[in-house]
C-alpha cells in the first residue's frame, strides 16, 4: 500500500512537471503554436516586460468584443482628429479614404525635392519649396503628438483605459522640443533665402 502510494505520488509529479516543461518550451521550439497577429495589433503598453522580453509573440486576439470596442473608438477618434487638425500631412488615412489630388501631388513633390536637395541639384525656387515642406512637416508632427498626448489623457480619465505610459510622455516632450528647434531652423533658413 505504501509503495503504491509512493509510486502514484512520483507519477503525478512527473506528469505535472512534464506538462509544465511542454508549456515552458513550446514557444521556443515550434513554428506553429504561436503566431503574430498582424491583422489586429493591439499592443498594450502596460504589458509586463517579461511577456515580451525575448520573442514578443502575441497570441491572436480572440476577444471580438474588445476588437469591436476598439474599432468603434478608432473610427470616432480618427474622425475627430481629422476635424481638429485639418490639412495636417500626418492625419492617418484609413482604408477607403482618399486624399485630394493636390495633397498627393504635394507629397510626391516633397519626396523628389528631398532627393534633389540631397543630390544638391535643387534650384533656388525648389529649395524654398523644400524648406516650406520641412517646416510644415515638423509643425504637423508636433501638432499630432500634442493632440494625442492631450486626448489620451482626457479619455483615460473617463474610460480608465491605459494609452501612453509616463515614459512615452517624457520621450514625446523631448521630441516635440527637438522638432520645434528644427522648425525654427528651417524658418530662419527660409527667411534668409526670401529676404
Amino acid at each position, binding site marked *: 500500500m505504501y509503495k503504491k502510494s*509512493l509510486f502514484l505520488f*512520483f507519477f503525478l*509529479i*512527473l506528469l505535472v*512537471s512534464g506538462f*509544465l*516543461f511542454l508549456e*515552458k*518550451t513550446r514557444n*521556443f*521550439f515550434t*513554428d*506553429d503554436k504561436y503566431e*503574430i497577429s*498582424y*491583422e489586429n*495589433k493591439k*499592443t498594450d503598453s502596460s504589458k509586463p*516586460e517579461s511577456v*515580451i*522580453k*525575448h*520573442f*514578443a*509573440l*502575441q497570441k491572436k486576439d480572440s476577444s471580438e468584443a474588445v476588437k469591436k470596442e*476598439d474599432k468603434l*473608438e*478608432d473610427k470616432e*477618434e*480618427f474622425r475627430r482628429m481629422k476635424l481638429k487638425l485639418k490639412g495636417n*500631412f500626418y492625419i*492617418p*488615412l484609413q*482604408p477607403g479614404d482618399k*486624399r485630394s489630388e493636390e495633397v*498627393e501631388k504635394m*507629397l510626391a513633390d*516633397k*519626396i*523628389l525635392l*528631398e532627393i*534633389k536637395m*540631397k*543630390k544638391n*541639384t535643387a534650384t533656388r525656387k525648389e529649395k524654398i519649396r523644400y524648406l516650406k515642406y520641412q517646416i510644415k512637416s515638423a509643425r*504637423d*508632427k508636433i501638432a*499630432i*503628438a500634442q493632440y*494625442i*498626448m492631450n*486626448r*489620451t489623457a482626457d479619455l483615460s480619465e473617463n474610460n480608465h483605459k491605459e494609452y*501612453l505610459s509616463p*515614459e*512615452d510622455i517624457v*520621450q514625446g516632450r523631448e*521630441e*516635440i522640443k527637438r522638432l520645434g528647434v528644427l522648425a525654427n531652423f528651417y524658418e530662419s533658413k527660409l527667411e534668409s533665402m526670401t529676404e
Partner: protein
Amino acid sequence: MKKTLLLTVLCMFMVWGFSYAKPVNPIFNHYVAVGDSLTHGFQSGAVDETRQPNSYPALLAKKMQIEFDQPLLKFPGYLINIEDFLKGNIRWWQYYYPIVGGVRRDNYKNSDILDNFGVTGADIKDGLDTTGKSGGYFKLVLGKDGASMIDQAIAQKPTFMTFWLGNNDVLGAALSCDTSKLTPIDTFRTRFEKTADRIASAMEDNGGTIRGVVLVNVPSVTSIAYLQKVTGPDFAEGSYNPFWMMTPSDNMMLSPDDISMINQRTQEVNDEISYVAMANGWGYVDANAIFKEIKEYGHRLRDVSGDPTGDRVITAEYLGGLFSLDGVHPSNTGHAVAANYIIDEINEMYGVELSHVSEINTAASDSLLQHPVDPRNKLDGWVADAIYGVVEIFM
C-alpha cells in the same frame, strides 16, 4: 520517510533542470548578431516589436534553442510599416510612437543583455565608430550613450556571431539613384579589416569567447525588388528606377553605366568579405549568388528539414513574397529564407545540425503573403515618409 523526501527533492531538481532549454550545441551558448536594417528586422518601411521577433537572427537563436534579447520598439515603431498603415492595423493613438521617433519597449532597462546589434542605416564605418549618441536608430538600439555595435556585441562575451554589414555602403547609391554615394573601396577595405580584426581578437584562440563567426555578403542591386527596369523610347535600355516612381523621371534613374558601376563595387566589397572570411576560417554566406538565383528562378519554400516541399514559389519581384513592401528588406518569409541559408552554412562549417525554419509555416502566417496590399498609387504623408525614410537611411 526521509528517503521519500530525498527522492521527491531529487525528482523536482531533475525536472527543474530539464525544464530549462539548453542550446543544441555549446558553440551557441551565447549568440550575438551585428548588422544593419536587415539584422534589425526592418520591414515595409519600419521596425517594430511585432516583426522584430521574425528577424533572421531571432529565428537563428530559436533554432539554436537559446534566449535572444532584442531592442524591441513599441508598435508601430519608428516610421510606420506600410502594410499596417494600409490595412488600418494601427490604433489612432499609436501614431504617437513613430512621431516621437520610436520608443523602446524596455525603456533601455535591458541594454546590458542585448544580443541583436542590427542598426538600421548602419554601414561599415558605424560598426566600430558610431555610438548611441548619434541618435535615431543608433540611440534606439545602442542606448543614448551606448558604445558602438561591435564593442557592445563583444562585451556580451558571445560564443557565436553573425556579421552582415556592408549593404549600405553599396545599396545606398542604388536606392538614392546616386553613384557618388558609393563607399570608396579602399575605405571599405580598411574599415572592414579593422572591424574583422576586432572580432578576431575576441576569438577563443586569442583568449576571448567567440567560437564561431559567419559573414554574409551584399546582394546585387538588380536582384532586389526596389529597382525596376524602365522601358520607353526616352530611356536607355537597361535603365532602372525605384518601384514607387509611377512615372519614370531622370531625377531618380540609374543608367546602365550606373548599374555597372554599382555592380562592380558590389563585387569588390564581396571579394573583401570573402577574403576576410577565408583568412579567419569563418563561415561565409554568398547572399549575392542566392538572391540572383531567386531573382532568376524563384524559390520553392522549404520545410523544417530544409527540403523544398512547399507548393508555393516566392520570387524577388515586387510583391513576389521575398521582399516586404519597401522592396529592399525581406518579408517575414524572406527572413525565414535568409535564416535557412545561414543555417546551411553554419551546419556545414561548424559540423552541427541546426534544424531549418519552416518557410512553409512562416509563409502561411505571413500576412503580407496571405493578404497582399499594394502601396503604389496610394501615396500618403506616412507612406511617403516611410518610402523616403528607406531611401534616406541608406544615404
